[in-house]
């Protein structure tokens, strides 16, 4: 068959009844691309000799190297079936589980799918997945059982065995369809029951339970694959042959004089030919006879293989060739490789493209007869029923179904995928040969000028390249046309036509009225997708797959484009795999950061499944569906989008630090004695720290002017969670307080006030008990960053400060506080700053604190006095009473005299201090002192590390359940619960897993379960790691139990040291473990 011209295809596009949009789906390595090759070869685009070897649609280099498809690619083919001519828009999809997002995008565009199954391997995990996807999108599948040659050549099955084998595979496939069907029916039924329950509650009279599952009522026979229905093809794409039952029924009905219809029904199944009676009888298996399929079909193929490949019997081959009435070239006959001869014979006898394409044309729907169910499903987002959509939108459905190319119908285009195209591949940049004149002209140019022009050319070329990088392509138009209020809208997509983008996530009714949501975009050019090549088109009629250039500005991943705002955004694509493999990406050269960011933006746009985010730590994180997908994304970034050297690494794992209540028992569950903590007094540089019993830490600033006493208390877990979830409320609370302190009054909306009051009440109810009496009122600040899950409590009896809840409070109190505020502000702020700094980075590994409450028990500040001796600071520091009195006096003074500031609290900071200036301003010292005090108070309590946890949902079949548990156990995961999914044999396991252990988790679990289990990870919460990172055996029992080193499995220590090492902090470990085991020779010997 010759090459199909572009004009022909354009002509064919205009007849939607003869268009078939289809995709090829299968498990990895089941021969999708090989089959696609055969189909492509039938159109003369590639040589039929190379079909199956070239893998024409795998246009990426890494696809060719790895031998797997990594992206879906589309091609338009022409097929003549009898007097009808068809246009096939074929999409080849990848089979690897990492790229199942590509399958989703492909499936959405198509009306039918070819599901390929390997005859040897049978149904594989991805086969299930693709069948499910096809089911979810309501598209009709047909089955191709591929690689039948392997049954002959590799497994050496007899034709009879092969028949039973094929039967089994068919049963497996149908079983999956069956489960999909039953689960859907059960779901519908469950919904119905719910509604009924509601009704029955109201009635609650005589209830009649219907125990039938509802399966009987629904007919499902049309869903299944069976050869007699003509939706199954047996093929060997590599050898280029394939057949459906019809073909053989046709042949034998002529030869044997049996009606073709009878043969069609009996060729597959338990029938045999009674030679004497010349009748087809039932029950071949019971009577030990050969079924018709074996006798008429398989035996022929088997004998052909036997003759050509196994025995290489020249005469027999010639006989066969003659009887089949085909001509084989002498070159093929003489070829030393029998496979060549085989494919030469087979491709003429039973060409696979013929079998598959005719099945496709007959069995798969055209865009015209798309199921109305599907149209409704596409247009109703989420739980909304189609009926509830506005009338205009409902009318679009009829347009959908008509799919004609009249001029005045609305255009609806669904953009399912964006991809980048090299400049060279675009038709307008195709190199064209220079004309003679041009060459002459060039010669005439002087060398100098020539060079100049070259330079200019180069820059121009570069800018072109940039352009093409972001050249995005969208596939599929489902442009429809409908009559609305007697206006005619065009359904033809012209180049440079303007379209609106219907934003995702906003419902159809919004779209009709709220025009600002819409963004307009214009199509710069329209292409016909021909595998790796693109052809320019002027216009595309409805119901075709097409490429659109120049949408990169307005489309992210996928979109719905339409000329009418009444068109609802189509339901989002349902992805089988969610991105879970996280890596941090960095440029090799730090100066190339902007390039990387731009590249990642493009990647995010082009890849349906990749996610890109910038984290607070400054990391650029790339989240992909799997390791292979990750590899492809990185290659893309490197070679296409960013064009820089990049490195990917394990992302930084965050931790939190906290304190817990002192344990009552030791590590071997022995009761701890009533050990009293001995007061430790040590001196750190100029600061004096004393720690007395019960974790109270007292610290004085270097100039001995101020003293703070701080104690750390663990917050109850619920409080931490509450604070964590209410961080927004706390943040607004802080802003309000800030402005109140300045004396400004803010208009606070009632809702925020309610939220704040609610938070306060909740805190009140959670902080119960003697220890927390009145604690909520005394909250001083939250930290880190003023809204974190740590609290600073004001336990200084004599020190009254405006409460953080003052915005809720009575007016009079705020006025009173306002008078004091001016005086308090400076030192109050220093304490808070110190607390914030301490909570931002804890002493264990400089990670933020969480769930810690610091109580300031005592706080003295002296007016400038000569430096005092350490022993006497207790008496020297003013008593609280005096201090408080001072304050009151001072506040009256401020109003009285202008210079009042120059004494007391206010004075300490503002006045130049010649005496104690070597330590800097007091406020600064107080910050440092407070920070140190908090850190020491923290260290005085039992410290623990908190790890971020993922919740992990795993869908797995029963047989791999054990392995899933194995992987979870190895990575410190904990299973919360497992349950069976109704109507299937899948288990749903819910587990928690530390983020620190999650790197490579998804990949490992897939490998270990051969792809039958796929996890989904979502960040859920912080969890205290129970082991103490500083633990060393202290009692005799512990010593016996854990040994001297006890470093066997201290998870917390491992994490802590890893973080410390990463940050360059001191890690307590020996440089060399064994002194004697070092290399003892000196270097020069």
């Amino acid at each position, binding site marked *: 068959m010759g090459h199909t011209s572009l004009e022909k295809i354009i002509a064919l596009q205009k007849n939607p009844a003869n268009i078939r949009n289809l995709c090829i789906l299968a498990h990895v390595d089941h021969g999708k691309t090989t089959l696609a090759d055969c189909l492509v070869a039938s159109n003369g685009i590639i040589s039929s000799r190379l079909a199956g070897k070239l893998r024409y649609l795998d246009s990426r280099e890494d696809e060719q190297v790895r031998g797997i498809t990594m992206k879906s690619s589309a091609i338009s083919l022409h097929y003549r079936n009898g007097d009808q001519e068809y246009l096939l828009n074929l999409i080849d999809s990848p089979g690897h589980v990492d790229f199942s997002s590509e399958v989703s995008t492909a499936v959405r565009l198509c009306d039918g799918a070819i599901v390929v199954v390997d005859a040897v391997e049978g149904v594989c995990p991805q086969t299930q997945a693709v069948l499910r996807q096809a089911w979810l999108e309501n598209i009709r599948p047909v089955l191709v059982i591929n690689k039948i040659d392997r049954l002959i050549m590799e497994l050496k099955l007899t034709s009879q065995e092969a028949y039973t084998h094929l039967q089994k595979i068919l049963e497996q496939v149908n079983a999956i369809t069956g489960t999909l069907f039953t689960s859907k029916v059960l779901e519908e039924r469950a919904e119905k029951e719910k509604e009924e329950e509601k009704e029955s509650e109201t009635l609650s009279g005589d209830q009649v339970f219907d125990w039938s599952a509802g399966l009987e009522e629904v007919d499902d026979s049309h869903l299944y694959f069976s050869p007699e229905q003509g939706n199954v093809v047996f093929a060997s794409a590599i050898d280029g042959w394939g057949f459906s039952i019809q073909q053989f029924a046709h042949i034998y009905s002529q030869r044997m004089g049996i009606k073709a219809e009878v043969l069609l029904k009996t060729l597959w199944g338990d029938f045999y030919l009674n030679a004497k009676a010349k009748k087809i009888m039932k029950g071949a298996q019971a009577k030990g006879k050969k079924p018709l399929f074996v006798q008429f079909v398989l035996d022929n193929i088997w004998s052909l293989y036997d003759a050509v490949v196994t025995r290489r019997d020249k005469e027999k081959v010639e006989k066969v060739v003659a009887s089949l009435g085909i001509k084989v070239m002498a070159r093929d006959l003489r070829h030393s490789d029998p496979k060549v001869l085989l494919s030469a014979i087979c491709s003429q006898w039973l060409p696979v493209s013929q079998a598959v394409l005719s099945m496709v044309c007959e069995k798969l729907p055209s865009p015209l007869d798309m199921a109305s169910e599907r149209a409704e499903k596409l247009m109703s987002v989420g739980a909304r029923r189609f009926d509830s959509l506005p009338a205009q939108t409902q009318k679009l459905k009829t347009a959908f179904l008509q799919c004609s190319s009249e001029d005045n119908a609305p255009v609806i285009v669904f953009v399912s995928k964006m991809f980048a195209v090299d400049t060279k591949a675009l038709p307008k940049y195709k190199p064209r040969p220079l004309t003679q004149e041009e060459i002459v002209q060039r010669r005439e140019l002087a060398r100098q000028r020539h060079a100049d022009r070259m330079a200019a050319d180069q820059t121009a070329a570069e800018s072109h390249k940039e352009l093409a990088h972001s050249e995005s392509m969208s596939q599929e138009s489902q442009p429809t046309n409908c009559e609305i209020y007697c206006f005619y809208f065009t359904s033809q997509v012209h180049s440079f036509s303007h379209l609106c983008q219907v934003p995702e996530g906003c419902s159809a009714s919004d779209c009709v009225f709220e025009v600002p949501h819409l963004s307009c975009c214009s199509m710069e050019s329209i292409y016909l997708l021909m595998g790796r090549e693109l052809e320019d088109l002027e216009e595309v009629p409805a119901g075709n797959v097409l490429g659109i250039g120049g949408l990169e500005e307005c489309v992210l991943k996928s979109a719905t484009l339409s000329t009418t705002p009444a068109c609802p955004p189509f339901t989002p694509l349902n992805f089988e795999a969610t991105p879970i493999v996280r890596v941090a990406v960095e440029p090799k050269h730090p100066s190339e950061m902007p390039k990387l960011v731009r590249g990642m933006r493009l990647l995010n746009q082009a890849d349906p499944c990749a996610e890109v985010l910038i984290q607070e730590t*400054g990391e650029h994180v790339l989240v992909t569906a799997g390791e292979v997908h990750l590899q492809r994304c990185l290659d893309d970034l490197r070679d296409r989008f960013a064009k820089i050297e990049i490195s990917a690494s394990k992302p930084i794992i965050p931790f939190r630090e906290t304190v817990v209540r002192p344990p009552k028992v030791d590590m071997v569950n022995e009761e701890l004695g009533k050990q009293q903590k001995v007061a430790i007094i040590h001196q750190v540089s100029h600061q004096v720290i004393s720690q007395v019993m019960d974790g109270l830490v007292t610290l004085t600033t270097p100039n001995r002017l101020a003293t703070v006493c701080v104690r750390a208390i663990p917050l109850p877990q619920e409080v931490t969670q509450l604070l964590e979830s209410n961080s927004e409320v706390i943040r607004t609370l802080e802003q309000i307080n800030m402005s109140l302190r300045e004396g400004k009054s803010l208009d606070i909306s009632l809702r925020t006030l309610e939220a704040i009051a609610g938070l306060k009440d909740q805190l009140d109810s959670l902080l119960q008990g003697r220890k927390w009496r009145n604690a909520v009122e005394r909250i001083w600040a939250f930290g880190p960053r003023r809204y974190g899950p740590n609290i600073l409590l004001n336990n200084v009896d004599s020190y009254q400060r405006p409460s953080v809840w003052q915005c809720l409070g009575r007016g009079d109190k705020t006025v009173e506080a306002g008078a004091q505020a001016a005086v308090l502000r400076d030192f109050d*702020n220093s304490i808070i700053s110190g607390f914030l700094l301490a909570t931002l980075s804890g002493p264990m590994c400089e990670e933020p604190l969480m769930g810690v409450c610091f109580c300031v028990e005592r706080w003295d500040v002296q007016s400038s006095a000569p430096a005092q001796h350490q022993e006497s600071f207790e008496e020297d520091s003013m008593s609280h009473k005096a201090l408080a009195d001072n304050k009151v006096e001072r506040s009256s003074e401020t109003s009285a005299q202008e210079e009042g500031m120059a004494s007391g609290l206010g004075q300490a900071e*503002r006045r130049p201090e010649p005496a104690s200036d070597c330590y800097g301003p007091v406020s600064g010292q107080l910050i440092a002192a407070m920070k140190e005090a908090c850190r020491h108070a923290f260290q005085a309590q039992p410290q623990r590390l908190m790890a971020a946890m993922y919740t992990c949902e795993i869908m797995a079949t029963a047989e791999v359940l054990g392995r899933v548990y194995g992987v979870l156990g190895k990575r410190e995961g904990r299973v919360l619960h497992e349950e069976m999914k109704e109507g299937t044999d899948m288990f749903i396991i819910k587990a928690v897993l530390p983020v620190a252990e999650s790197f490579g988790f998804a990949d490992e679990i897939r490998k270990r379960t051969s792809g039958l289990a796929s996890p989904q990870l979502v960040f859920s919460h912080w969890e205290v790691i129970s082991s103490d990172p500083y633990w060393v055996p202290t009692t005799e029992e512990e010593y016996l139990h854990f040994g001297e080193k006890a470093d066997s499995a201290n998870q917390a220590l491992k994490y802590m040291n890893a973080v410390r090492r990463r940050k*360059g902090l001191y890690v307590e470990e020996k*440089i060399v473990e*064994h*002194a004697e085991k*070092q290399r003892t020779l000196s270097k020069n010997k």
Partner: protein
Amino acid sequence: MSIFTPTNQIRLTNVAVVRMKKGGKRFEIACYKNKVMSWRSGAEKDLDEVLQTNSVFVNVSKGQVAKKDDLTKAFGTDDLTEICKQILAKGELQVSDKERQSQLETMFRDIATIVAEKCVNPDTKRPYTVSLIERAMKDIHYSVKANKSTKQQALEVIRQLKETMEIQRAHMRLRLVLPAKEGKRLKEKLKPLLQVVESEDFDEELEMVCLVDPGCFREIDELIRCETKGRGSLEVLSLKDVEEGDEKL
């Protein structure tokens, strides 16, 4: 008389000598290499893993053991282990290769961590990661000085990095309250020090919220304190002005 020929020359291998001068005498002990620092930091707790032998020498390489009298005179005890511990703690030693290497490595990391903490990418207002800073430091061939503090060196690194990449110290957000009288005059003086003035409110007092380079903080503080004689005030609103939260592209 002994003749030093290559064959009978005994080499001290795997020996690190720790020396201390006390009471006018020099004492030495023989230790294993790469172990003394671990002992001093407290990571190594087994003395036998540190000391080759617990005898105290006058000269380790010659094998001359110190006299008991000298030891008691200098240390006030003749308990050799005790003396060894004292020498270990206070004596001077040659830092061996691995010790130096690990020390420099930690310092390098530490510097990179400090730089990453203090700086942001001016375009995005987000910090750089430590590993990126480390790579940048290697690119500019920064060599760590063991005797300078990491903080000092970090400031030096920031200065050098500015030449090769987009980096900037994260700004501090300050609130300045100046009395009305000096307000105008001071504002002119402050202007060159302030990076961005976010808000300005002039009624009885001049109140300004601004972003400044942390390096200028002292200067501003000084200026305000001296010029207003204690009536102006300065408040740190945030130490680092960075973007918070994750951002999806």
